[in-house]
């Protein structure tokens, strides 16, 4: 009998304690924060942006000429920044909801996406500004009245701590403005196919080479997000137990270096692929731009809407 048929003794021994320890650690090993961000991003990019599902819907904004849409939306955001009237801002915000509806976009999903990040972050940022020691003004709600002027580290503190009308107004204005501009930006980009949005940038005299690079960068973000996700997954499949903070930091830095090298290598291949397909530096899109009656209607209604709001404010 040859020796190879004999199972070695160490393989027959069962080491229950070791097994349990590793099980416990595996259960604890959840996805890291970076992995979650990347996975979410990759999902959004692939399922929503690159597939352009919202741009294919049959809504009002999808039918508009991209140039008209781009210019009017940018002016609209500018208008929201200029106005200092809260009623006007509320009306403008409500009109973005109307746009969501008219473009047949899933309203709840978009509201979640718009509100979860920027406006909430803004609210946290402006919170201290409602107090009188940052924005002085009429007290709206006095929180504490000091009996005598208090000194702290040589600084004289104000005699009362209060929420001011001016502070609250500034905060509300800022949150409204941020939500208007984030909503409009999002509506603009999801209802316009990326290639046509890029082509409309020619209108504002952005050099073609810059637009080409912007276009390519957009496409390759999806590739790199996936590649980095793969790096994290590859490491995870080879990992048992907990990792230290410093080894995580080391890994992230190495991943960035490796990603850079991959991207350089990749760009050479892309260049050769482009050359072999006859790239000359000029980019053509298949859709010629044409202004329709709808576009003129849109331009007129936007001008009317903004003039009205301007008169009100």
């Amino acid at each position, binding site marked *: 009998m040859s020796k190879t048929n004999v199972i070695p003794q160490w393989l027959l021994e069962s080491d229950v304690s070791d097994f349990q320890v590793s099980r416990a650690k595996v259960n604890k090993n959840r996805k890291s924060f970076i992995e979650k961000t990347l996975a979410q991003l990759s999902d959004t990019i692939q399922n929503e942006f690159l597939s352009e599902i919202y741009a294919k819907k049959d809504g009002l904004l999808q039918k508009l000429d991209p140039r008209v849409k781009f210019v009017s939306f940018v002016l609209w955001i500018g208008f929201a920044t200029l106005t200092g009237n809260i009623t006007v801002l509320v009306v403008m915000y409500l009109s973005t909801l109307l746009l969501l509806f008219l473009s047949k976009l899933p309203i709840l999903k978009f509201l979640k996406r718009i509100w979860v990040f920027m406006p909430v972050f803004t609210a946290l940022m402006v919170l201290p*500004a409602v107090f009188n020691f940052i924005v002085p003004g009429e007290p709206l709600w006095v929180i504490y009245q000091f009996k005598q002027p208090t000194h702290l580290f040589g600084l004289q503190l104000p005699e009362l701590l209060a929420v001011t009308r001016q502070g609250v107004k500034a905060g509300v204005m800022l949150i409204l403005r941020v939500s208007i501009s984030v909503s409009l930006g999002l509506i603009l980009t999801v209802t316009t196919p990326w290639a046509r949005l890029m082509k409309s940038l020619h209108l504002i005299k952005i050099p073609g080479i810059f637009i080409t690079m912007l276009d390519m960068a957009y496409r390759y973000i999806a590739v790199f997000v996936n590649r980095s996700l793969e790096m994290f997954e590859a490491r995870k499949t080879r990992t048992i137990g907990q990792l230290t903070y410093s080894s995580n930091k080391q890994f992230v830095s190495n991943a*960035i270096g490796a990603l850079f090298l991959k991207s350089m290598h990749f760009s050479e291949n892309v260049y050769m692929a482009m050359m072999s397909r006859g790239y000359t530096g000029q980019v053509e899109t298949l859709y010629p731009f044409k202004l329709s009656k709808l576009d003129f209607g849109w331009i007129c209604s936007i001008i009317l809407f903004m003039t009205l709001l301007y008169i009100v404010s």
Partner: protein
Amino acid sequence: MHIPDGYIGLETAVPFLGAMIPIWRKALQKIKTTLKRKHIPVLSIGAAFSFTIMMFNVPLPGGSSGHAVGAVLLAILLGPWAACIGVSLALIIQALIFGDGGIWAIGANCFNMAFAMPFIGYYTYKLLKGNAEHFSKRAVFAAAAAGYIGLNAAALLTAVEFGIQPLLFKAADGTPLYAPHPLWVAVPVMMFEHLLIAGPIEGAVTALAYLYIGKTNPELLGVKGQKNIGSQMKEGAAV
């Protein structure tokens, strides 16, 4: 550090856009003369790279997190003008697609993170590295310091842009029209976070990624790699 629309007035955003136009034009010219058509994919892919690493939030002890911009790393590896274009592209895509940073504020954001940061970082690196060789200890230290200083310079600029808003733009009753925090609040808050947390991360990430490239692919900076495999085998055979 991304400025959304509404935090700064158009009176601030438009001049920054105006300032960025000659910078972008100059950068494009520089790239055309030095990099040629072959580098269009290099830059777009550099932008995709910068975008992706802005998503690499490094976990911090205590549960918070911070992200790197990578502008200084790109500047050291590709030159400051190329980094300017690369990071600008990433910022524009972020503003258009993800609403991270405003559309009108693109000028201000690019000025802070795509112009000031790579240039300050790049010249800090040059200055500190001196005549030392690429990937030497001194050069790695210089890369770390450049990342740290570059990020903090960008953060300081952002904080000043926020802080001057209530000084310049107020309604008649004293309501600040844009970002409400005055300089004495905006600057310390922003700098506390960046000097102590985000800055060291950017520095460490810049230096470690630089070191990694030095170990694996030093040809990128014109440094000859360690002896190639052929000569190593010969040496091995001799032993």
